[in-house]
């Protein structure tokens, strides 16, 4: 019987400062996802292939509820649709009890089609059109006001309605982090937010039910959430005292990180990202000490996205070719690129082989299949000696990739969900050329 083959290769040994924090050298093989063999998934559904774990989706949701719910008595998660609005994913979270947080008319309709009652839909976003506002009013969604033009447009829409549309005010504030996100909502420190609140209440046409802020994305400082919660709570108390309006909920937005490692980070995110409990501790501590009477504690709403879904998603891909670059570096071309793995622009994704190799690794540049210079997935990654046809798994890709992906050069592949019993379901079929072209029209003079 012949021996398994591994291509002959050399690795230059370089002396450098030892890194006692360094991760384990070499990549561990991941042969199965949620108990289903990678080889079986590829054989049945092709490559590339997005795989979602229902078990992990529920586990992440329950962990977030536990982190906040054990520290604060009234907590509600609103699933951030833009992070991944595949219906199956949304419905898992809605089954767990999540409301919907949407940022466009299209997302609003998706949430309604997924069975979310209007009053459980929070309509964020900086670009709502008149038709969006009318629809939100019709289904009694809560409109999160972003700017003065939108406020006045909604006042116009609300005129003559039997029921006052329910609104929350989006507030941006200094939570002690740089850069300060000030593009969403009304600024707190310069008085703009207070002025808008006065106008909302004085109009008599809108019902103020909440205050909202979103301090940023992938925020690594739990204390910033504590600062934001303190300021939002103070604003709510001022509404009660001076505007005689009780704010029912405080929405601290999203922005909680996952354990994907940001490009340029010295240490892996698994070692540096604070646990969700630390964020919960900061927020709950701020709210509980804000001076609300116990029976008037506002509902705490969180619009978690990435922290709930990232870990549940994997992307399986196949090596198409290996080559050597002019400077001697190894390059590997995979069958997926930045068209599918949009987050590779900001993460150094963890990538595993799917079979056992020797301990020999080679620094490799990972490219996608697009004929574009930007299509680089990893600038340098230590991978075993992959051969064409070998498969790899990219971990923690559940957030944004299945909504920000592009139909560009290649068609988008199957997305499957592995349910809690281990059954595999296609939740979005692979695109076809017919699907791609169905909206195109060719003028008659170009048909001959």
């Amino acid at each position, binding site marked *: 019987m012949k021996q*398994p083959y591994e*291509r*002959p290769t*050399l690795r230059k040994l370089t002396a450098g400062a030892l890194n006692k924090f360094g991760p384990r050298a070499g990549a561990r093989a991941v042969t199965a996802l949620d108990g289903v063999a990678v080889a079986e998934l590829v054989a049945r559904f092709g490559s590339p292939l997005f795989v979602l774990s229902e078990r992990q989706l529920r586990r992440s949701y329950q962990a977030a509820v536990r982190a906040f719910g054990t520290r604060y008595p009234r907590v509600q998660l609103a699933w951030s649709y833009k992070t991944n609005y595949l219906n199956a994913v949304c419905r898992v979270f809605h089954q767990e009890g999540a409301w919907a947080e949407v940022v466009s008319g299209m997302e609003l309709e998706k949430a309604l089609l997924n069975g979310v009652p209007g009053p459980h839909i929070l309509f964020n976003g900086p670009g709502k059109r008149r038709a969006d506002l009318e629809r939100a009013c019709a289904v009694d969604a809560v409109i999160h006001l972003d700017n003065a033009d939108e406020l006045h447009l909604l006042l116009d829409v609300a005129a003559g309605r039997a029921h006052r549309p329910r609104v929350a005010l989006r507030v941006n504030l200094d939570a002690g982090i740089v850069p300060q996100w000030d593009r969403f909502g009304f600024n707190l420190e310069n008085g703009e937010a207070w002025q808008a609140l006065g106008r909302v209440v004085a109009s008599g046409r809108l019902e103020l039910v909440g205050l909202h802020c979103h301090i940023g994305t992938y925020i690594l400082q739990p204390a910033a959430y504590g600062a934001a919660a303190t300021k939002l709570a103070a604003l709510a108390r001022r509404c009660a005292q001076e505007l005689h309006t009780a704010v029912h909920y405080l929405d601290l937005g999203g922005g909680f990180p996952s354990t994907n490692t940001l490009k340029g980070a010295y240490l892996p995110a698994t070692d540096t990202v604070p646990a969700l409990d630390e964020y919960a501790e900061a927020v709950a501590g701020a709210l509980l000490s804000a001076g609300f009477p116990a029976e008037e504690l506002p509902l705490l709403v969180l619009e978690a996205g990435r922290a709930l879904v990232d870990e549940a998603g994997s992307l399986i891909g196949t090596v198409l070719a290996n080559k*050597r670059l002019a400077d001697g570096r190894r390059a590997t071309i995979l069958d997926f690129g930045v068209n599918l793995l949009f987050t590779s622009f900001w993460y150094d994704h963890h990538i595993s082989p799917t079979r056992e190799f020797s301990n020999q690794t080679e620094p490799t540049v990972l490219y996608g299949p697009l004929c574009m210079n930007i299509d680089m997935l990893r600038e340098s990654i230590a991978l075993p000696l992959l051969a064409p046809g070998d498969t790899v798994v990219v971990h923690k890709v559940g957030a944004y990739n299945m909504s920000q992906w592009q139909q560009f050069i290649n068609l988008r592949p199957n997305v499957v969900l592995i349910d809690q019993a281990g059954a595999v379901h296609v939740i979005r079929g692979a695109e076809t050329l017919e699907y791609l072209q169905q909206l195109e029209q060719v003028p008659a003079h170009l048909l001959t």
Partner: protein
Amino acid sequence: MKLRKNIATSEAGFIFNPATGDSFAANQLAADILARTKAGQDAAAIKADILERYEVAPGQLEKDWDDLLAQLREFNLLD
């Protein structure tokens, strides 16, 4: 393929170039190829033996052989 005379190799795959001070780690097959080359075996014989012993198609081996040569050239290990 002709290794520089002063290149030191070990069975375990350690390679040292005393002229530059560079050292390298070869995987098992590369170490085997280099040892045979130093012992004077020609490329055709080495490849035939690899095809005999390993699960590899001739085309794949040719491609990987060329890649090994490119690495050896890049690392200044060939005459």
